[in-house]
């Protein structure tokens, strides 16, 4: 059983769509990060994806590349990320996910990573450069108890969507556009077609849609066709220029959640 899947289903039963917010660990500031994370949850986020930085983030656009770079400069590594997550966990019962690339995990030690994640209160992991071809070699038994959330994209065939749905746990991360994080929607109707196609094929998982969702209107457009949305670059971008109390970012989070419920 999955804490994340149960949480999403419970919300959906009351006709609510979930909002998952991506934050880069220790960005923009290490000392205030726990406070920021908890305020984002209070402002309407249902769960958090905490990114641990990597020097060469292939799947990310300029905004998250920048935040990763700052995080590394702020001394964030996996140990520090676990410390931050542990403190966030003390203040919330909502699902917490860690997201990042394969190499820091491999370097940390697979077994140690899985154990430390669980003891810090992490519910699931997303590693975008581990596709199903590499899944069995990468996520060994020690990942039991952690959801391993997989991604599908507009280039994923129907057969692959089935196979990925089968392997994924927690939810299915539906990347709405071909591109890196922060990509612009080229045509919302194409993305919606893909999401509708997905919803007909998937059996096991709830679908959360991410990439290219940056405001309340986007949230409103996607809400009817999925169980929730993921917002990353738009939030990171807002944090780059925000005041000390992050008031604009918290307003953005509240607006996104509002878009999902109206």
């Amino acid at each position, binding site marked *: 059983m999955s804490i994340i899947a149960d949480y999403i289903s419970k919300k959906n039963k009351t006709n609510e769509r979930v909002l998952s917010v991506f934050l880069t660990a220790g960005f923009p500031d290490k000392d205030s990060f726990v406070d920021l994370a908890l305020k984002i949850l209070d402002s309407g986020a249902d769960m958090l994806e905490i990114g641990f*930085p*990597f*020097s*060469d983030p*292939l*799947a990310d*656009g300029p905004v998250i*590349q920048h935040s990763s770079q700052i995080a*590394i400069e702020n001394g964030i*590594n*996996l140990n520090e990320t676990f410390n931050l997550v542990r403190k966030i966990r003390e203040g919330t019962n909502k699902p917490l996910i860690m997201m990042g*690339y*394969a*190499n*820091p*995990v*491999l*370097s*940390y030690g697979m077994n140690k990573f899985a154990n430390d994640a669980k003891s810090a209160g992490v519910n699931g992991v997303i590693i*975008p*450069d*581990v*596709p199903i*071809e*590499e899944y069995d*070699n990468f996520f060994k038994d020690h990942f039991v108890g952690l959801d391993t959330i*997989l*991604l*599908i*994209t*507009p*280039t*994923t*065939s129907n057969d*692959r969507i089935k196979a*990925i749905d089968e392997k994924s746990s927690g939810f299915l991360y539906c*990347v709405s556009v*071909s*591109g*890196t994080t922060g*990509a612009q929607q080229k045509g919302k109707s194409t993305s919606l077609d893909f999401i509708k196609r997905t919803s007909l094929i998937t059996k096991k998982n709830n679908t959360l849609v991410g990439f290219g969702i940056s405001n309340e209107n986007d949230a409103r457009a996607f809400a009817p066709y999925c169980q929730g949305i993921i917002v990353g670059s738009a939030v990171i971008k807002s944090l780059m220029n925000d005041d000390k109390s992050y008031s604009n970012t918290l307003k953005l989070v509240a607006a996104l959640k509002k878009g999902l419920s109206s």
Partner: protein
Amino acid sequence: MSLSTNYNFPDDNGRFGKYGGKFVPETLITPLQELEKVYNELDNDPQFHNELDKLNKEYSGRPTPLTFAEGLTNYFNRGKIYLKREDLCHTGAHKINNALGQILLAKKLGKTRIIAETGAGQHGVAVATVCAKFGLKCFIYMGEVDIERQSLNVFRMKLLGAEVIPVSSGSKTLKDATNEAIRDWVTNVKDTHYIIGSVVGPHPYPMIVRNFQSVIGIEAKEQIQKVEGRLPDYIVACVGGGSNAIGIFFPFINSGVKLIGVEAAGYGINTSKHCATLTLGREGIFQGMKTYLLQNDEGQVSEVHSISAGLDYPGVGPEHSFFKDEIIADYFSVTDDEAIRATELLSQKEGIIPALESAHAIAYLNYLMPETAKEEIIIVNVSGRGDKDLNTIKNSLGY
């Protein structure tokens, strides 16, 4: 194409032992599968091989000579040294071998837009060249540091009609240019083919690039048989990503020939300014592949250095990682200074100005030759010519 006996890598999962694989975002999996399928079709199609052979011969100038290096042989006064002359290829380096193969592949895939990364600019020039010939739009990613030190090649690419896109992220060199090229591919995958320049990246690229480059070794094998009536004792090649080395090594696997790869030690392997990946790296996952990687304790990729832009890369082709562990080849490194002195040596003993990359292979002869006997035969792969490096060489030698 199985050229070597008892050697069947990569396996069906794109692995060379534990190395290789496909560590990429989901968006790229379907295009990689399509690429593999179309490549396999072409590889079994005699017409494709005829077309490529014809281009190699009539456009690129293959076969490249195997030159007996009499001056260099006399200088060391030990074994006989031959040079495989990839510097004489059209565009001045072995990179054209892969570019020609992949442009045919791109046409077959129906792609209209070509992207590539480049370090020294030799791969960028080769791709710009084949795009001009075949009438495809061409975009070359190049780190800002490399744009500065290889400005002549930047101009060549522009003259050939390519757009050179400066990369300002990270160390602003080959690694970062590769990241940007992959990000472009993720975004424009529908109409775009990515011509990767070395035996790196996700499967099937390391295999495809190896197979297109193995023309170097196939020719060298025939040529040395013809002049010496036997195989050589040693083959020496420089290794950055490792495509010229794999190209000349591959047909000699399991044939008793000692295969030696030479990495860039930069300021020295006791400093942090080098890119001797196989010498000092450890297993990592980087740019789509599991391979040896220069990284810190936390798995962040190291900032590396070589005087030669083409070797200035923290990773290495996964097949080289496999060769190292299985002792199919041995890997050593030489410094910037040694490479510069070897450039001078080859220029003055043979009248051949090598690329700084290739000069690393020449430099290793200082270590190898004293160990050889007079009757032994050494082939060094001169992967490219040094015209592009004249500014760097001039600054280093100071005359």
